[in-house]
Protein backbone atom coordinates (compact mmCIF):
# COMPACT_ATOMS: atom_id res chain seq x y z
CA UNK A 1 0.00 0.00 0.00
CA UNK A 2 2.54 2.56 -1.16
CA UNK A 3 0.00 5.27 -1.77
CA UNK A 4 -1.48 4.98 1.70
CA UNK A 5 1.93 5.55 3.27
CA UNK A 6 2.31 8.57 0.99
CA UNK A 7 -0.95 9.98 2.31
CA UNK A 8 0.10 9.35 5.88
CA UNK A 9 3.45 11.02 5.21
CA UNK A 10 1.75 14.17 3.91
CA UNK A 11 -0.60 14.29 6.89
CA UNK A 12 2.26 13.82 9.36
CA UNK A 13 4.22 16.59 7.63
CA UNK A 14 1.18 18.87 7.79
CA UNK A 15 0.59 18.26 11.49
CA UNK A 16 4.29 18.53 12.34
CA UNK A 17 4.48 21.90 10.56
CA UNK A 18 1.45 23.13 12.48
CA UNK A 19 3.00 22.06 15.79
CA UNK A 20 6.29 23.73 14.94
CA UNK A 21 4.77 27.11 14.00
CA UNK A 22 5.95 29.80 16.36
CA UNK A 23 3.95 30.89 19.40
CA UNK A 24 3.62 34.42 20.77
CA UNK A 25 6.81 36.05 22.01
CA UNK A 26 7.65 34.77 25.50
CA UNK A 27 7.35 38.13 27.23
CA UNK A 28 3.84 38.58 25.94
CA UNK A 29 2.51 35.46 27.54
CA UNK A 30 3.71 36.01 31.05
CA UNK A 31 4.32 39.02 33.20
CA UNK A 32 7.11 41.45 32.45
CA UNK A 33 8.47 43.52 35.31
CA UNK A 34 10.31 46.73 34.50
CA UNK A 35 12.25 47.65 37.63
CA UNK A 36 14.27 50.54 38.99
CA UNK A 37 12.68 53.19 36.82
CA UNK A 38 11.58 56.74 37.31
CA UNK A 39 7.94 56.35 36.33
CA UNK A 40 5.53 59.01 35.14
CA UNK A 41 2.08 57.45 35.49
CA UNK A 42 0.24 60.25 33.68
CA UNK A 43 -0.16 62.38 36.79
CA UNK A 44 2.96 62.20 38.89
CA UNK A 45 6.51 60.89 39.07
CA UNK A 46 7.18 57.73 41.11
CA UNK A 47 10.86 57.21 41.91
CA UNK A 48 12.45 53.76 41.81
CA UNK A 49 9.21 52.20 40.59
CA UNK A 50 8.32 48.73 39.41
CA UNK A 51 6.00 48.35 36.45
CA UNK A 52 4.22 45.03 35.87
CA UNK A 53 2.77 44.40 32.42
CA UNK A 54 1.13 41.41 30.73
CA UNK A 55 -0.81 40.89 27.51
CA UNK A 56 -0.37 44.50 26.48
CA UNK A 57 -1.84 45.95 29.69
CA UNK A 58 -0.41 47.42 32.87
CA UNK A 59 -1.08 45.14 35.85
CA UNK A 60 0.36 47.45 38.45
CA UNK A 61 2.84 50.27 38.86
CA UNK A 62 4.26 51.50 42.14
CA UNK A 63 7.42 51.84 44.18
CA UNK A 64 6.95 48.93 46.58
CA UNK A 65 5.76 46.11 44.36
CA UNK A 66 6.60 42.44 44.70
CA UNK A 67 7.85 40.97 41.42
CA UNK A 68 6.13 37.64 40.62
CA UNK A 69 8.59 34.74 40.48
CA UNK A 70 7.94 33.78 36.87
CA UNK A 71 8.08 37.35 35.57
CA UNK A 72 10.62 38.38 33.01
CA UNK A 73 12.58 41.18 34.67
CA UNK A 74 13.88 44.17 32.74
CA UNK A 75 16.23 46.34 34.75
CA UNK A 76 15.85 49.87 33.42
CA UNK A 77 17.60 51.68 36.25
CA UNK A 78 18.31 55.31 35.52
CA UNK A 79 15.71 55.50 32.78
CA UNK A 80 12.33 57.18 32.81
CA UNK A 81 9.18 55.41 31.65
CA UNK A 82 6.29 57.48 30.31
CA UNK A 83 2.89 56.51 28.95
CA UNK A 84 2.73 56.62 25.16
CA UNK A 85 2.35 60.28 24.22
CA UNK A 86 -0.81 61.76 22.71
CA UNK A 87 -0.72 64.40 19.99
CA UNK A 88 -4.08 66.17 20.13
CA UNK A 89 -3.93 67.77 16.68
CA UNK A 90 -2.53 66.11 13.56
CA UNK A 91 -3.44 65.38 9.98
CA UNK A 92 -2.35 61.81 9.39
CA UNK A 93 -1.51 60.73 5.87
CA UNK A 94 1.27 58.75 4.23
CA UNK A 95 3.73 57.43 6.79
CA UNK A 96 2.45 59.70 9.59
CA UNK A 97 1.49 56.90 11.96
CA UNK A 98 4.84 55.11 11.60
CA UNK A 99 6.80 58.36 11.84
CA UNK A 100 4.99 59.40 15.02
CA UNK A 101 5.57 56.10 16.76
CA UNK A 102 9.34 56.38 16.30
CA UNK A 103 9.18 59.43 18.56
CA UNK A 104 7.00 57.84 21.23
CA UNK A 105 3.67 59.26 20.06
CA UNK A 106 1.32 56.28 20.38
CA UNK A 107 -2.03 58.06 19.95
CA UNK A 108 -2.98 60.92 17.64
CA UNK A 109 -6.17 62.92 17.26
CA UNK A 110 -6.67 63.71 13.61
CA UNK A 111 -8.53 66.94 12.89
CA UNK A 112 -9.34 66.37 9.21
CA UNK A 113 -8.74 63.38 6.99
CA UNK A 114 -10.66 61.17 4.62
CA UNK A 115 -12.69 58.58 6.58
CA UNK A 116 -12.16 55.91 3.89
CA UNK A 117 -10.12 53.60 6.14
CA UNK A 118 -11.74 54.62 9.43
CA UNK A 119 -13.10 51.17 10.29
CA UNK A 120 -9.64 49.68 9.85
CA UNK A 121 -8.22 52.49 11.99
CA UNK A 122 -10.74 51.68 14.72
CA UNK A 123 -10.03 47.98 14.54
CA UNK A 124 -6.28 48.62 14.81
CA UNK A 125 -6.55 50.92 17.79
CA UNK A 126 -8.65 48.38 19.69
CA UNK A 127 -5.90 45.78 19.32
CA UNK A 128 -3.36 45.26 22.09
CA UNK A 129 -0.91 43.54 19.75
CA UNK A 130 2.46 45.17 19.07
CA UNK A 131 2.27 47.49 16.08
CA UNK A 132 4.54 49.76 14.09
CA UNK A 133 1.92 52.49 13.81
CA UNK A 134 0.48 54.87 16.34
CA UNK A 135 -3.26 54.69 16.99
CA UNK A 136 -5.60 57.25 15.53
CA UNK A 137 -8.83 58.95 16.51
CA UNK A 138 -10.33 61.18 13.87
CA UNK A 139 -12.81 63.92 13.11
CA UNK A 140 -13.08 62.68 9.52
CA UNK A 141 -14.36 65.45 7.28
CA UNK A 142 -14.55 68.91 8.80
CA UNK A 143 -17.45 71.34 8.68
CA UNK A 144 -16.73 74.37 6.54
CA UNK A 145 -18.31 76.36 3.72
CA UNK A 146 -17.81 76.23 -0.04
CA UNK A 147 -14.38 77.77 -0.68
CA UNK A 148 -13.65 78.11 3.05
CA UNK A 149 -10.67 76.90 5.08
CA UNK A 150 -10.25 73.14 4.66
CA UNK A 151 -11.35 73.08 1.02
CA UNK A 152 -7.91 74.10 -0.31
CA UNK A 153 -6.22 70.70 0.11
CA UNK A 154 -7.81 68.91 -2.83
CA UNK A 155 -9.79 66.55 -0.60
CA UNK A 156 -13.51 66.86 -1.37
CA UNK A 157 -15.39 68.01 1.73
CA UNK A 158 -19.13 67.49 2.23
CA UNK A 159 -20.58 70.91 3.03
CA UNK A 160 -23.34 71.29 5.64
CA UNK A 161 -26.11 73.10 3.75
CA UNK A 162 -28.20 74.79 6.41
CA UNK A 163 -28.72 74.74 10.20
CA UNK A 164 -31.80 72.55 9.61
CA UNK A 165 -29.63 69.83 8.04
CA UNK A 166 -26.85 70.00 10.67
CA UNK A 167 -28.19 66.84 12.33
CA UNK A 168 -28.02 64.98 9.06
CA UNK A 169 -24.49 66.20 8.37
CA UNK A 170 -23.28 65.15 11.82
CA UNK A 171 -24.98 61.75 11.52
CA UNK A 172 -23.24 61.14 8.20
CA UNK A 173 -19.88 61.83 9.86
CA UNK A 174 -20.67 59.46 12.70
CA UNK A 175 -21.70 56.78 10.22
CA UNK A 176 -18.31 57.20 8.56
CA UNK A 177 -16.76 56.54 11.97
CA UNK A 178 -15.81 60.05 13.06
CA UNK A 179 -14.93 60.19 16.76
CA UNK A 180 -15.78 63.89 17.17
CA UNK A 181 -16.96 66.79 15.03
CA UNK A 182 -14.59 69.53 13.90
CA UNK A 183 -15.99 72.92 12.95
CA UNK A 184 -14.02 75.56 11.04
CA UNK A 185 -14.47 79.19 12.06
CA UNK A 186 -11.97 81.05 9.90
CA UNK A 187 -12.67 84.35 8.17
CA UNK A 188 -8.97 84.76 7.34
CA UNK A 189 -8.79 88.10 9.15
CA UNK A 190 -5.83 86.92 11.22
CA UNK A 191 -3.88 86.10 8.07
CA UNK A 192 -4.94 89.05 5.82
CA UNK A 193 -6.63 86.62 3.43
CA UNK A 194 -10.41 87.04 3.59
CA UNK A 195 -12.22 83.69 3.54
CA UNK A 196 -15.89 82.69 3.61
CA UNK A 197 -16.78 80.93 6.86
CA UNK A 198 -19.66 79.25 8.70
CA UNK A 199 -22.20 81.52 10.33
CA UNK A 200 -23.06 81.54 14.01
CA UNK A 201 -26.42 79.80 13.57
CA UNK A 202 -24.81 76.97 11.62
CA UNK A 203 -22.09 76.54 14.25
CA UNK A 204 -24.64 76.37 17.07
CA UNK A 205 -26.66 73.81 15.11
CA UNK A 206 -23.59 71.63 14.47
CA UNK A 207 -22.48 71.78 18.11
CA UNK A 208 -25.97 70.86 19.30
CA UNK A 209 -26.17 68.01 16.80
CA UNK A 210 -22.80 66.63 17.96
CA UNK A 211 -23.80 66.88 21.61
CA UNK A 212 -27.16 65.25 20.91
CA UNK A 213 -25.20 62.25 19.59
CA UNK A 214 -22.88 62.28 22.59
CA UNK A 215 -19.69 63.26 20.79
CA UNK A 216 -17.41 66.25 21.25
CA UNK A 217 -17.60 69.33 19.06
CA UNK A 218 -14.25 71.03 18.55
CA UNK A 219 -13.48 74.22 16.70
CA UNK A 220 -10.72 75.73 14.61
CA UNK A 221 -10.62 79.43 15.48
CA UNK A 222 -7.63 81.66 14.83
CA UNK A 223 -8.78 84.96 16.31
CA UNK A 224 -9.89 85.88 19.81
CA UNK A 225 -13.28 87.01 18.57
CA UNK A 226 -13.96 83.79 16.66
CA UNK A 227 -12.75 81.75 19.66
CA UNK A 228 -15.28 83.61 21.82
CA UNK A 229 -18.00 82.89 19.30
CA UNK A 230 -17.08 79.19 19.37
CA UNK A 231 -17.31 79.06 23.15
CA UNK A 232 -20.67 80.85 23.06
CA UNK A 233 -21.84 78.21 20.58
CA UNK A 234 -20.97 75.58 23.18
CA UNK A 235 -17.89 73.81 21.75
CA UNK A 236 -15.91 71.52 24.03
CA UNK A 237 -12.52 72.76 22.96
CA UNK A 238 -10.47 74.85 20.56
CA UNK A 239 -7.94 72.96 18.48
CA UNK A 240 -5.71 76.03 17.92
CA UNK A 241 -4.59 78.94 20.04
CA UNK A 242 -5.35 82.32 18.50
CA UNK A 243 -2.41 84.66 18.01
CA UNK A 244 -4.07 87.73 16.49
CA UNK A 245 -4.07 89.58 19.79
CA UNK A 246 -3.14 89.08 23.45
CA UNK A 247 -5.70 87.06 25.35
CA UNK A 248 -7.89 89.33 27.48
CA UNK A 249 -9.45 88.80 30.90
CA UNK A 250 -12.93 88.49 29.46
CA UNK A 251 -11.84 85.55 27.31
CA UNK A 252 -10.16 83.81 30.22
CA UNK A 253 -13.25 84.24 32.34
CA UNK A 254 -15.46 82.91 29.57
CA UNK A 255 -13.17 79.92 28.91
CA UNK A 256 -13.04 78.98 32.58
CA UNK A 257 -16.76 79.32 33.00
CA UNK A 258 -17.48 77.17 29.94
CA UNK A 259 -14.86 74.61 30.99
CA UNK A 260 -13.30 74.41 27.55
CA UNK A 261 -9.78 73.28 26.71
CA UNK A 262 -7.34 74.54 24.09
CA UNK A 263 -4.76 72.78 21.91
CA UNK A 264 -2.09 75.48 21.48
CA UNK A 265 -0.44 73.86 18.37
CA UNK A 266 2.60 76.09 18.91
CA UNK A 267 4.75 74.22 16.33
CA UNK A 268 2.44 75.21 13.48
CA UNK A 269 2.07 78.71 14.93
CA UNK A 270 5.87 78.95 15.03
CA UNK A 271 5.92 78.00 11.35
CA UNK A 272 3.25 80.52 10.31
CA UNK A 273 5.13 83.21 12.22
CA UNK A 274 8.36 82.50 10.38
CA UNK A 275 10.15 80.80 13.25
CA UNK A 276 12.56 78.03 12.17
CA UNK A 277 12.44 74.72 14.05
CA UNK A 278 15.08 74.55 16.80
CA UNK A 279 18.39 72.84 16.09
CA UNK A 280 17.97 70.20 18.78
CA UNK A 281 14.97 68.87 16.90
CA UNK A 282 16.66 68.30 13.53
CA UNK A 283 20.39 68.57 14.27
CA UNK A 284 20.71 66.20 17.22
CA UNK A 285 22.05 62.81 16.04
CA UNK A 286 19.81 60.99 18.50
CA UNK A 287 16.64 62.46 16.99
CA UNK A 288 18.04 62.56 13.46
CA UNK A 289 17.96 58.78 13.16
CA UNK A 290 14.28 58.79 14.12
CA UNK A 291 13.35 61.42 11.55
CA UNK A 292 13.05 60.43 7.90
CA UNK A 293 14.38 62.53 5.06
CA UNK A 294 10.86 63.56 4.07
CA UNK A 295 10.07 64.55 7.65
CA UNK A 296 13.24 66.60 7.79
CA UNK A 297 12.41 68.53 4.64
CA UNK A 298 8.86 69.04 5.95
CA UNK A 299 10.25 70.47 9.20
CA UNK A 300 12.52 72.86 7.31
CA UNK A 301 9.72 74.02 5.02
CA UNK A 302 8.23 77.47 5.72
CA UNK A 303 4.76 78.91 5.15
CA UNK A 304 4.82 81.44 2.30
CA UNK A 305 4.97 84.99 3.62
CA UNK A 306 5.33 83.85 7.22
CA UNK A 307 8.42 86.00 7.80
CA UNK A 308 6.26 89.14 7.80
CA UNK A 309 4.36 87.93 10.84
CA UNK A 310 7.38 87.26 13.04
CA UNK A 311 6.65 90.28 15.22
CA UNK A 312 3.43 88.59 16.42
CA UNK A 313 5.21 85.48 17.74
CA UNK A 314 5.64 86.77 21.35
CA UNK A 315 1.82 86.93 21.57
CA UNK A 316 1.68 83.14 21.22
CA UNK A 317 3.98 82.69 24.17
CA UNK A 318 2.24 85.27 26.27
CA UNK A 319 -1.16 83.69 25.53
CA UNK A 320 0.05 80.21 26.48
CA UNK A 321 1.51 81.57 29.70
CA UNK A 322 -1.60 83.52 30.69
CA UNK A 323 -4.07 80.77 29.85
CA UNK A 324 -2.00 78.19 31.69
CA UNK A 325 -1.63 80.40 34.76
CA UNK A 326 -5.36 81.05 34.78
CA UNK A 327 -6.00 77.30 34.76
CA UNK A 328 -7.42 76.79 31.26
CA UNK A 329 -6.53 73.17 30.33
CA UNK A 330 -4.01 73.05 27.46
CA UNK A 331 -3.63 69.81 25.46
CA UNK A 332 -0.37 69.31 23.60
CA UNK A 333 -0.82 69.18 19.84
CA UNK A 334 1.38 69.86 16.86
CA UNK A 335 -0.89 70.19 13.79
CA UNK A 336 1.69 67.97 12.11
CA UNK A 337 1.03 67.50 8.42
CA UNK A 338 1.61 71.21 7.79
CA UNK A 339 4.82 72.91 6.63
CA UNK A 340 7.35 73.30 9.45
CA UNK A 341 6.01 70.29 11.34
CA UNK A 342 6.40 66.51 11.31
CA UNK A 343 4.51 63.70 13.02
CA UNK A 344 6.43 62.81 16.17
CA UNK A 345 9.17 65.41 16.49
CA UNK A 346 6.71 68.31 16.47
CA UNK A 347 4.94 67.05 19.59
CA UNK A 348 8.29 67.27 21.39
CA UNK A 349 8.66 70.74 19.91
CA UNK A 350 5.25 71.63 21.38
CA UNK A 351 6.24 70.27 24.81
CA UNK A 352 9.46 72.28 24.76
CA UNK A 353 7.59 75.46 23.79
CA UNK A 354 4.96 74.90 26.49
CA UNK A 355 7.74 74.59 29.07
CA UNK A 356 9.43 77.68 27.67
CA UNK A 357 6.13 79.52 28.06
CA UNK A 358 5.94 78.66 31.73
CA UNK A 359 4.62 75.11 32.23
CA UNK A 360 6.60 72.82 34.48
CA UNK A 361 7.92 69.71 32.71
CA UNK A 362 5.41 67.55 34.59
CA UNK A 363 2.53 69.81 33.55
CA UNK A 364 3.71 69.62 29.96
CA UNK A 365 3.81 65.80 30.15
CA UNK A 366 0.28 65.74 31.56
CA UNK A 367 -0.82 67.87 28.62
CA UNK A 368 0.38 65.07 26.30
CA UNK A 369 -0.89 62.11 28.36
CA UNK A 370 -3.59 62.12 31.04
CA UNK A 371 -5.17 65.44 30.11
CA UNK A 372 -6.04 64.72 26.45
CA UNK A 373 -7.17 61.21 27.43
CA UNK A 374 -9.51 62.70 30.04
CA UNK A 375 -10.88 65.44 27.78
CA UNK A 376 -11.55 63.02 24.90
CA UNK A 377 -12.91 60.35 27.22
CA UNK A 378 -10.31 57.71 26.32
CA UNK A 379 -9.80 54.89 28.78
CA UNK A 380 -6.43 53.27 29.24
CA UNK A 381 -4.44 55.86 27.32
CA UNK A 382 -2.08 58.51 28.65
CA UNK A 383 -1.66 56.59 31.90
CA UNK A 384 0.40 53.78 33.42
CA UNK A 385 -1.93 52.69 36.16
CA UNK A 386 -3.49 49.23 36.59
CA UNK A 387 -5.63 48.47 33.52
CA UNK A 388 -4.02 51.04 31.23
CA UNK A 389 -2.56 50.02 27.89
CA UNK A 390 1.09 49.14 28.21
CA UNK A 391 2.18 51.72 25.62
CA UNK A 392 5.53 52.65 27.10
CA UNK A 393 8.04 55.28 26.16
CA UNK A 394 11.45 54.75 27.75
CA UNK A 395 13.79 57.71 27.79
CA UNK A 396 17.23 58.42 29.17
CA UNK A 397 17.13 61.00 31.92
CA UNK A 398 15.49 64.38 31.55
CA UNK A 399 11.82 64.02 30.53
CA UNK A 400 11.76 67.30 28.61
CA UNK A 401 14.50 66.21 26.23
CA UNK A 402 13.80 63.98 23.26
CA UNK A 403 12.09 60.67 23.80
CA UNK A 404 13.37 57.29 22.85
CA UNK A 405 10.60 54.78 22.30
CA UNK A 406 11.01 51.14 23.22
Amino acid at each position, binding site marked *: *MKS*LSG*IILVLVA*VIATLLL*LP*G*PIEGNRGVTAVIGVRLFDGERIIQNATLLIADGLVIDADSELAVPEDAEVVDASGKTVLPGLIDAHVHAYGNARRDALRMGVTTMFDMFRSPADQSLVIQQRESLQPTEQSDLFSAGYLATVEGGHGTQYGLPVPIPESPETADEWVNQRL*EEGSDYIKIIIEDGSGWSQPLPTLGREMIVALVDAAHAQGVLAVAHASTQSSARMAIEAGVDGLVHLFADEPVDDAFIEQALEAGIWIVPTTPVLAAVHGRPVPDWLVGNPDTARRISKQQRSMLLLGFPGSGMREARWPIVFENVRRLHEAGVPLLAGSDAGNPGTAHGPSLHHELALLVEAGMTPIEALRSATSLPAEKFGLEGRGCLEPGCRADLVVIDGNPTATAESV
Partner: protein
Amino acid sequence: MNAANPSIQLVRAQWLNLLRTPAYTLPTLLFPVMFYVFFGLVMLRGQSLWLLCTFGTFGVMGAALFSFGVSIATERAQGWLLLLRASPAPVSAVIAGKAFGALLFAIVIVVMMSALAAAFGNVRLETAQWLSLAGILTLGALPFCLMGLALGLWLSPNAAPAVLNLVYLPLGFLSGLWIPSTVFPGWLQSVAEWLPPYHLAALALDVTGTKAADWAHSLTVLGLFGLSFAVMTALGWRRLSGVS
Protein backbone atom coordinates in the same frame (compact mmCIF):
# COMPACT_ATOMS: atom_id res chain seq x y z
CA MET B 1 -6.13 -2.93 6.37
CA ASN B 2 -9.12 -3.96 4.35
CA ALA B 3 -7.97 -3.69 0.75
CA ALA B 4 -11.46 -4.42 -0.51
CA ASN B 5 -13.03 -1.42 1.23
CA PRO B 6 -14.23 0.68 -1.73
CA SER B 7 -13.86 3.99 0.10
CA ILE B 8 -10.20 3.34 0.76
CA GLN B 9 -9.69 2.21 -2.80
CA LEU B 10 -11.23 5.39 -4.18
CA VAL B 11 -9.25 7.58 -1.78
CA ARG B 12 -6.16 5.77 -3.03
CA ALA B 13 -7.21 6.28 -6.62
CA GLN B 14 -7.74 9.97 -5.98
CA TRP B 15 -4.30 10.23 -4.39
CA LEU B 16 -2.67 8.59 -7.42
CA ASN B 17 -4.67 10.85 -9.66
CA LEU B 18 -3.30 13.93 -7.87
CA LEU B 19 0.26 12.63 -7.87
CA ARG B 20 0.15 11.80 -11.54
CA THR B 21 -1.29 15.13 -12.67
CA PRO B 22 1.13 17.66 -11.15
CA ALA B 23 0.13 20.12 -13.85
CA TYR B 24 -3.24 20.30 -12.08
CA THR B 25 -2.13 19.73 -8.49
CA LEU B 26 0.67 22.28 -8.21
CA PRO B 27 -1.12 25.34 -9.66
CA THR B 28 -4.22 24.58 -7.57
CA LEU B 29 -2.12 24.47 -4.42
CA LEU B 30 0.11 27.42 -5.24
CA PHE B 31 -2.43 29.85 -6.71
CA PRO B 32 -4.08 30.93 -3.42
CA VAL B 33 -0.74 30.86 -1.62
CA MET B 34 0.69 33.20 -4.23
CA PHE B 35 -2.26 35.53 -3.71
CA TYR B 36 -1.62 35.58 0.01
CA VAL B 37 2.06 36.34 -0.51
CA PHE B 38 1.24 39.30 -2.76
CA PHE B 39 -1.55 40.79 -0.66
CA GLY B 40 -0.83 39.64 2.87
CA LEU B 41 2.94 39.65 3.02
CA VAL B 42 4.15 42.15 0.45
CA MET B 43 1.46 44.80 0.04
CA LEU B 44 -0.37 45.09 3.34
CA ARG B 45 2.27 44.36 5.94
CA GLY B 46 0.87 44.53 9.45
CA GLN B 47 -2.38 42.90 8.30
CA SER B 48 -0.75 39.51 7.82
CA LEU B 49 -2.80 37.67 10.43
CA TRP B 50 -6.14 39.05 9.28
CA LEU B 51 -5.34 38.23 5.66
CA LEU B 52 -4.04 34.78 6.60
CA CYS B 53 -7.56 33.99 7.83
CA THR B 54 -9.29 35.44 4.78
CA PHE B 55 -6.92 34.17 2.08
CA GLY B 56 -6.90 30.80 3.86
CA THR B 57 -10.69 30.78 3.41
CA PHE B 58 -10.22 31.81 -0.20
CA GLY B 59 -7.76 28.94 -0.73
CA VAL B 60 -9.85 26.15 0.77
CA MET B 61 -12.94 27.41 -1.00
CA GLY B 62 -11.11 27.23 -4.34
CA ALA B 63 -9.71 23.77 -3.63
CA ALA B 64 -13.20 22.50 -2.77
CA LEU B 65 -15.03 24.13 -5.66
CA PHE B 66 -12.54 23.15 -8.35
CA SER B 67 -11.58 19.64 -7.31
CA PHE B 68 -15.28 18.80 -7.13
CA GLY B 69 -16.90 20.97 -9.73
CA VAL B 70 -14.65 20.56 -12.75
CA SER B 71 -13.75 16.91 -12.30
CA ILE B 72 -17.34 15.79 -11.61
CA ALA B 73 -18.58 17.61 -14.71
CA THR B 74 -15.88 15.99 -16.84
CA GLU B 75 -16.28 12.52 -15.38
CA ARG B 76 -20.01 12.73 -15.82
CA ALA B 77 -19.61 13.61 -19.50
CA GLN B 78 -17.16 10.76 -19.98
CA GLY B 79 -19.65 8.34 -18.49
CA TRP B 80 -17.23 7.49 -15.71
CA LEU B 81 -19.74 8.39 -13.02
CA LEU B 82 -22.34 6.08 -14.54
CA LEU B 83 -19.78 3.30 -14.62
CA LEU B 84 -18.93 3.92 -10.97
CA ARG B 85 -22.59 3.80 -10.15
CA ALA B 86 -22.85 0.40 -11.80
CA SER B 87 -19.82 -0.85 -9.84
CA PRO B 88 -20.18 -2.29 -6.33
CA ALA B 89 -18.72 0.93 -4.89
CA PRO B 90 -21.40 2.85 -2.99
CA VAL B 91 -22.08 6.51 -3.85
CA SER B 92 -20.60 7.51 -0.51
CA ALA B 93 -17.25 6.01 -1.50
CA VAL B 94 -17.18 8.01 -4.72
CA ILE B 95 -17.80 11.19 -2.81
CA ALA B 96 -15.38 10.21 -0.05
CA GLY B 97 -12.60 9.87 -2.60
CA LYS B 98 -13.26 13.33 -3.98
CA ALA B 99 -13.75 14.87 -0.53
CA PHE B 100 -10.44 13.40 0.55
CA GLY B 101 -8.71 15.15 -2.33
CA ALA B 102 -10.37 18.48 -1.58
CA LEU B 103 -9.68 18.36 2.15
CA LEU B 104 -6.08 17.33 1.55
CA PHE B 105 -5.66 20.32 -0.73
CA ALA B 106 -7.34 22.53 1.83
CA ILE B 107 -5.09 21.56 4.71
CA VAL B 108 -1.92 21.74 2.62
CA ILE B 109 -2.87 25.25 1.44
CA VAL B 110 -3.62 26.44 4.97
CA VAL B 111 -0.41 24.99 6.36
CA MET B 112 1.71 26.49 3.59
CA MET B 113 0.12 29.91 4.17
CA SER B 114 0.55 29.58 7.93
CA ALA B 115 4.24 28.75 7.56
CA LEU B 116 4.76 31.73 5.24
CA ALA B 117 2.80 34.00 7.59
CA ALA B 118 4.96 32.93 10.52
CA ALA B 119 8.21 33.22 8.59
CA PHE B 120 7.64 36.46 6.69
CA GLY B 121 4.58 38.12 8.20
CA ASN B 122 5.71 37.86 11.83
CA VAL B 123 2.42 36.14 12.72
CA ARG B 124 2.58 34.47 16.11
CA LEU B 125 -0.15 32.21 17.49
CA GLU B 126 -0.51 29.64 20.25
CA THR B 127 -0.14 26.06 18.98
CA ALA B 128 -3.82 25.46 19.76
CA GLN B 129 -4.73 28.46 17.58
CA TRP B 130 -2.62 27.25 14.65
CA LEU B 131 -4.31 23.86 14.92
CA SER B 132 -7.82 25.31 15.22
CA LEU B 133 -7.22 27.61 12.26
CA ALA B 134 -6.18 24.66 10.09
CA GLY B 135 -9.03 22.54 11.48
CA ILE B 136 -11.74 25.17 10.99
CA LEU B 137 -10.67 26.01 7.47
CA THR B 138 -10.27 22.37 6.43
CA LEU B 139 -13.68 21.37 7.78
CA GLY B 140 -15.07 24.62 6.46
CA ALA B 141 -14.22 23.39 2.98
CA LEU B 142 -17.02 20.81 3.25
CA PRO B 143 -19.99 23.07 2.40
CA PHE B 144 -18.01 24.32 -0.60
CA CYS B 145 -17.36 20.70 -1.60
CA LEU B 146 -21.12 20.25 -1.73
CA MET B 147 -21.44 23.40 -3.78
CA GLY B 148 -18.78 22.15 -6.21
CA LEU B 149 -20.44 18.75 -6.36
CA ALA B 150 -23.86 20.20 -7.11
CA LEU B 151 -22.51 22.53 -9.78
CA GLY B 152 -20.47 19.70 -11.28
CA LEU B 153 -23.57 17.57 -11.57
CA TRP B 154 -25.59 20.30 -13.20
CA LEU B 155 -23.07 22.02 -15.47
CA SER B 156 -21.63 20.79 -18.76
CA PRO B 157 -17.88 20.06 -18.66
CA ASN B 158 -17.15 23.04 -20.90
CA ALA B 159 -19.19 25.45 -18.83
CA ALA B 160 -17.96 24.21 -15.44
CA PRO B 161 -14.55 25.97 -15.23
CA ALA B 162 -15.98 29.27 -16.50
CA VAL B 163 -19.00 29.22 -14.22
CA LEU B 164 -16.91 28.18 -11.22
CA ASN B 165 -14.50 31.07 -11.76
CA LEU B 166 -17.46 33.37 -12.18
CA VAL B 167 -18.72 32.22 -8.79
CA TYR B 168 -15.39 31.81 -7.03
CA LEU B 169 -13.67 35.13 -7.65
CA PRO B 170 -16.59 37.55 -7.01
CA LEU B 171 -17.70 35.47 -4.02
CA GLY B 172 -14.19 35.71 -2.58
CA PHE B 173 -13.94 39.43 -3.15
CA LEU B 174 -17.44 40.31 -1.93
CA SER B 175 -16.97 38.24 1.22
CA GLY B 176 -14.01 40.42 2.14
CA LEU B 177 -11.42 37.71 1.57
CA TRP B 178 -9.08 39.91 -0.47
CA ILE B 179 -9.66 43.23 1.23
CA PRO B 180 -11.15 43.14 4.76
CA SER B 181 -14.89 43.77 4.55
CA THR B 182 -14.42 46.28 7.39
CA VAL B 183 -13.09 48.77 4.84
CA PHE B 184 -16.05 48.22 2.50
CA PRO B 185 -18.70 50.90 2.18
CA GLY B 186 -21.69 50.16 4.43
CA TRP B 187 -23.97 48.67 1.79
CA LEU B 188 -21.24 46.32 0.53
CA GLN B 189 -20.59 45.19 4.10
CA SER B 190 -24.21 44.17 4.44
CA VAL B 191 -23.87 42.17 1.21
CA ALA B 192 -20.78 40.41 2.63
CA GLU B 193 -22.69 39.34 5.73
CA TRP B 194 -25.01 37.22 3.58
CA LEU B 195 -22.22 35.26 1.91
CA PRO B 196 -21.01 31.91 3.30
CA PRO B 197 -17.23 32.54 2.80
CA TYR B 198 -17.61 35.63 4.97
CA HIS B 199 -18.84 33.40 7.79
CA LEU B 200 -16.08 30.83 7.37
CA ALA B 201 -13.52 33.66 7.48
CA ALA B 202 -15.30 35.05 10.56
CA LEU B 203 -14.77 31.74 12.38
CA ALA B 204 -11.10 31.72 11.34
CA LEU B 205 -10.69 35.31 12.58
CA ASP B 206 -12.31 34.28 15.86
CA VAL B 207 -10.07 31.29 16.61
CA THR B 208 -6.97 33.37 15.92
CA GLY B 209 -8.19 36.05 18.32
CA THR B 210 -8.38 38.68 15.59
CA LYS B 211 -12.09 39.48 15.67
CA ALA B 212 -14.84 37.88 17.74
CA ALA B 213 -17.50 35.99 15.79
CA ASP B 214 -21.11 35.03 16.43
CA TRP B 215 -20.56 31.27 16.19
CA ALA B 216 -24.21 30.19 16.22
CA HIS B 217 -25.06 32.62 13.44
CA SER B 218 -22.05 31.80 11.26
CA LEU B 219 -22.46 28.04 11.68
CA THR B 220 -26.16 28.32 10.82
CA VAL B 221 -25.39 30.21 7.61
CA LEU B 222 -22.71 27.68 6.60
CA GLY B 223 -24.99 24.77 7.54
CA LEU B 224 -27.97 26.07 5.54
CA PHE B 225 -25.68 26.81 2.63
CA GLY B 226 -24.28 23.26 2.72
CA LEU B 227 -27.76 21.79 3.10
CA SER B 228 -29.17 23.59 0.08
CA PHE B 229 -26.36 22.28 -2.11
CA ALA B 230 -26.77 18.80 -0.62
CA VAL B 231 -30.36 18.89 -1.91
CA MET B 232 -29.18 20.09 -5.32
CA THR B 233 -26.60 17.29 -5.33
CA ALA B 234 -29.25 14.68 -4.59
CA LEU B 235 -31.44 16.01 -7.41
CA GLY B 236 -28.47 16.15 -9.77
CA TRP B 237 -27.49 12.59 -8.95
CA ARG B 238 -30.96 11.29 -9.74
CA ARG B 239 -30.94 13.15 -13.01
CA LEU B 240 -27.66 11.45 -13.95
CA SER B 241 -29.19 8.25 -15.26
CA GLY B 242 -31.79 9.97 -17.38
CA VAL B 243 -29.66 12.53 -19.20
CA SER B 244 -26.10 11.38 -19.68
